[in-house]
């Protein structure tokens, strides 16, 4: 679990930050919440059966005029992260974040959410399960920013009924469906969707009439995204080159996984696709030359 050191707690969480002076007056806001955001946690199933994968859904809502960040905050900011406690035998997968908004500034773009964002965390039950209930504890850690920034942390518990023999039905309420819609789809769900790595460039191709088409990458050790190059368009078909800088020494391995999101249109409800490609130092990459 994340532990705040006493001094840090006193400075950061326990006491509110010094108010922004009236030098730059802010618009009146609703009552201040600690961390300037709040979370709600639920699941997407009625109950859980043996070996069933379901989702713990964390909805994070920043205060009005504040925002929290995507898993890659971009030029600045801090990612929204989770610590999950599950009963023995349960396993937790990678959180799936909805399409973020792009916040533009002179210092570079950042990615995040100015309104409620629902993150889906896959959890798989063990093969052998007893009838009853289990408890899952989710701690969400975030950075919320407006004119200043505050760190937030909230722990919520959700109870899930378990059934020793039957898998549970999915909840199909409107809210959940809406949240699911905002999740990125796999790239192979896009007509002609394909990603390839050649030398130090990732090429993403597909077909869509929606414009603009943009890509946002997830920086990691040994991988840095360069500004996107000009896209090639042929009717509905596109090919987007994404130049990257690869440093296999820094990545401490022969393979770097390049991940990001392909965004169509401008609205948060427009489609997005998850892009993922492995670049191997020996097979895909020869001193920057394609093979």
């Amino acid at each position, binding site marked *: 679990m994340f532990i705040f050191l006493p001094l840090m707690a006193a400075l950061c969480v326990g006491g509110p930050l010094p108010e922004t002076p009236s030098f730059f007056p802010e618009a009146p806001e609703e009552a201040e919440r600690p961390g300037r955001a709040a979370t709600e946690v639920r699941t997407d199933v009625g109950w859980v059966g043996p070996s069933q994968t379901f989702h713990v859904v964390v909805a994070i809502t920043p205060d009005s005029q504040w925002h929290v960040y995507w898993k890659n905050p971009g030029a600045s900011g801090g990612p929204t992260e989770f610590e999950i406690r599950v009963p023995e035998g349960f396993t937790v997968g990678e959180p799936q974040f909805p399409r973020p908004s792009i916040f533009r500034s002179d210092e570079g773009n950042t990615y995040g959410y100015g309104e409620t964002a629902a993150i889906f965390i896959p959890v798989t039950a063990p093969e052998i399960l007893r009838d009853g209930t289990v408890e899952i504890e989710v701690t969400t850690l975030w950075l919320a920013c407006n004119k*200043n920034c505050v760190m937030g942390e909230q722990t919520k518990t959700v109870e899930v009924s378990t059934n020793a023999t039957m898998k549970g039905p999915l909840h199909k309420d409107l809210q959940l469906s809406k949240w699911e819609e905002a999740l990125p789809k796999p790239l192979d769900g896009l007509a002609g969707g394909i990603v390839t790595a050649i030398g130090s460039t990732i090429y993403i191709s597909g077909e869509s009439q929606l414009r603009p*088409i943009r890509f946002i990458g997830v920086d990691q050790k040994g991988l840095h995204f360069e500004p996107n190059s000009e896209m090639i368009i042929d009717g509905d078909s596109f090919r987007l080159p994404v130049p990257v800088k690869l440093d296999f020494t820094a990545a401490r391995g022969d393979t770097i996984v390049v991940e990001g999101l392909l965004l169509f249109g401008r609205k948060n409800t427009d489609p997005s696709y998850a892009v993922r490609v492995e670049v191997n130092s020996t097979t895909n990459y020869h001193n920057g030359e394609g093979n």
Partner: protein
Amino acid sequence: MFKAIVTLSITALVATPALAQIGVRPLDTTPKEDKKTVEVGEQAPAFELVDQNGKTHTLQEYEGKIVVLEWFNETCPYCKGTWGSGLIPKLLTDLQEHKAEVVYLAVNSSANRPEDKIVESGKEFLEEFEIEIPILNDYNGKVGRAYKARTTPHMFVIDAEGILVYQGALSDDSRSKEGAEADTHILRVVTQIDAGEEVSPSYVQPWGCPVKYARDGDRGRNRDGKSGRGGKGGRGSGSGPK
């Protein structure tokens, strides 16, 4: 009392690979997003800035020494965390043990409060730790923009020849979970320089609060002490990059 001094950096664009044209119509693709910081391996931008005690510091005066710059904002929870957890105080001590002389300077490019309040607040922050390092006042943001500092903290290491050899994250422990025991990229970089090794990695994505730069409408409003809101006793923000 500990005495030390600090700075930052930038990146560059990569040549677009030649591509067979399948179509014709170039489109608005991606924004010029993620403006890169200055490329390591380049000469670090010169600067002349005044610290919280009115002393002027230039990069030039530290020629022959390794200069570490920490973009700093004492109200940012990440800075509070890295200082409050003991990580930066320990780093300052560790850096003294290296054979190379290291100058550690904090740079504050925030302009979201009156300048004199920012200077005073930084001073009070350091007093809590009983540590004396210069906090260079970059209220007009010229130096921060020259280095393209994006976050607090955003770290830059400049070698004895004035070449930028590292820029990016302080450590991999953004939430100070490991406290003072976290490994820092700064100590790693200085150790690599000491050993005559190549600095690698020379960039790690920085994390932290956005730097609260003065916007167009704010610039000049409060930066030189002549507006009535500027620093006390001649504490201005200096003349920025040289």
